[in-house]
């Protein structure tokens, strides 16, 4: 079995003077301390990438900086799904007997380490360099295309999407490490400046600095008994121009594989950690996977279903939309919060009776999907 035995994070936000390596080290130390392990106990290390620190072998850079000599180490790249993909590979390594304790760590000074234009241009490269990027496309533009079509096809409204931003911000207000904690209203979301219509500023996640880590172990440690029960992936396209069926982007295929791996049903999930780079991302994922009906995410938010006391508590750390997005660490934060919830250590965000968590990461433009089922044991 693979247990998420320790987690740790820096605060997310604009942290002047921060570096990718410094943020990684701080998060890794916190995760190891949480797991009650020493650096010498770590025999596997997985990381992702940092746009502010491109490197051909980031995992060993982190290992050396941190002072460990793992038996297995390399980086992964699956865009926003990288964090959950790292946890999935850690589970595979631990289950196979290859490793006893795998450190997964993601960090980037994405906000303070580059200009806003640099960040927007770098991320736009998720699009096709020859057939998309030249049109002045940006990540919000790709998701703006998603939003316009999805709203048209299923009857989703601007207000439905705005509801999700309001919920994420309310959750972030309860997390001391969140980037954006000031409450926002539905009207403020609707009145925020246009970015790539129909998406407005408050439909979009911020660019943050931050670091986050977890330790996946073969044996449970004293601090938390949360195991990875199952995982799955799906990859149907890279570029939004090439996505064929917009009602079937791969999210459900990925979720179904994770549920089958876990031997569980969707209805058994009682804590949700779902990627939310934009409000439309969250709506589409929740609806395609089947947690709510098509065009039902907004009404579910209005009904309070995603609140801490709701029947589908969702991203209680505030998600990418408000906890913040520092790249790979943005998507890993969903998993870390799920671990804290299932371990009963989410402080005043604690969901009662959270025992089975569903985690979903999305990379690119609904391109790479990784899903995971966590369980308190």
């Amino acid at each position, binding site marked *: 079995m693979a247990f998420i035995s320790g987690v740790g994070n820096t605060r997310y936000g604009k942290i002047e003077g921060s570096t990718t390596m410094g943020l990684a080290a701080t998060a890794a130390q916190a995760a190891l301390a949480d797991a009650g392990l020493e650096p010498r106990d770590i025999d596997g290390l997985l990381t992702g990438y940092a746009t502010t620190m491109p490197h051909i072998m980031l995992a060993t850079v982190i290992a050396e900086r941190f002072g460990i000599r793992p038996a297995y180490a390399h980086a992964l790249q699956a865009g926003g799904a990288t964090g959950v993909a790292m946890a999935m590979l850690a589970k595979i390594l631990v289950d196979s007997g290859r490793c006893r304790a795998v450190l997964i760590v993601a960090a980037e000074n994405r906000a303070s380490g580059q200009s806003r234009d640099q960040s927007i241009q770098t991320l736009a490269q998720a699009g096709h360099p020859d057939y998309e990027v030249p*049109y002045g*496309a940006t990540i919000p533009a790709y998701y703006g295309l998603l939003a*316009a079509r999805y709203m048209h096809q299923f009857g989703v409204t601007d207000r439905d999407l705005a509801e999700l931003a309001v919920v994420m911000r309310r959750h972030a207000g309860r997390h001391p490490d969140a980037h954006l904690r000031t409450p926002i209203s539905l009207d403020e979301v609707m009145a925020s400046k246009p*970015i790539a*219509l129909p998406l407005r500023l408050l439909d979009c996640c911020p660019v943050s600095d931050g670091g986050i880590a977890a330790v996946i172990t073969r044996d449970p440690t004293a601090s938390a008994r949360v195991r990875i029960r199952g995982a799955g992936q799906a990859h149907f396209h890279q570029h939004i*121009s090439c996505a064929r069926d917009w009602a079937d982007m791969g999210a459900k295929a990925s979720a179904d594989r994770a549920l089958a791996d876990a031997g569980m049903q969707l209805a058994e999930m009682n804590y949700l950690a779902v990627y939310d780079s934009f409000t439309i991302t969250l709506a589409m994922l929740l609806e395609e996977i089947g947690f709510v009906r098509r065009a039902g995410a907004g009404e579910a938010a209005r009904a309070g279903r995603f609140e801490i006391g709701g029947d589908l508590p969702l991203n209680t750390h505030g998600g990418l939309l408000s906890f913040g997005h520092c790249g790979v660490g943005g998507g890993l934060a969903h998993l870390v919060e799920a671990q804290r919830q299932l371990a009963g250590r989410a402080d005043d965000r604690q969901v009662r009776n959270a025992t089975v968590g569903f985690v979903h990461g999305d990379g690119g433009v609904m391109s790479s999907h990784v899903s995971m089922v966590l369980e308190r044991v």
Partner: protein
Amino acid sequence: MTQATASSADPIARDWWAGVAEGRIGYEVCADCGTAQFYPRGHCTACGSARVEVRPAAGTGTIFSITVVHRPPSAALQPFAPYAIALVDLDEGVRLMAHADPALGIGARVRATFVTFGDRTITRFVAA
């Protein structure tokens, strides 16, 4: 980031943009199985055949989705903002990204025009 015409490493892409500069939207058709595809790749993604030929599209189609970009990626493109990026289903059965009249909606019938954007000529769809 708008210099891909000159800087693209892909000769197929360079040829395609050279076509656009002359008012021609190319797409590929497989000589073996007849499948039409975009973007051009030099092989058929349906059957794997390397016998694909580039044909010029009529330039007519339907808006599949459209977004209006108010925040461009660079200062160089700021003078063009706001601009609309659309996915257009061409009548030949392929989908491509291009610019479009921001007033257009999903489902609108469109025809291609060619305009300057940044340092290159791009396709911009307007009401047919």
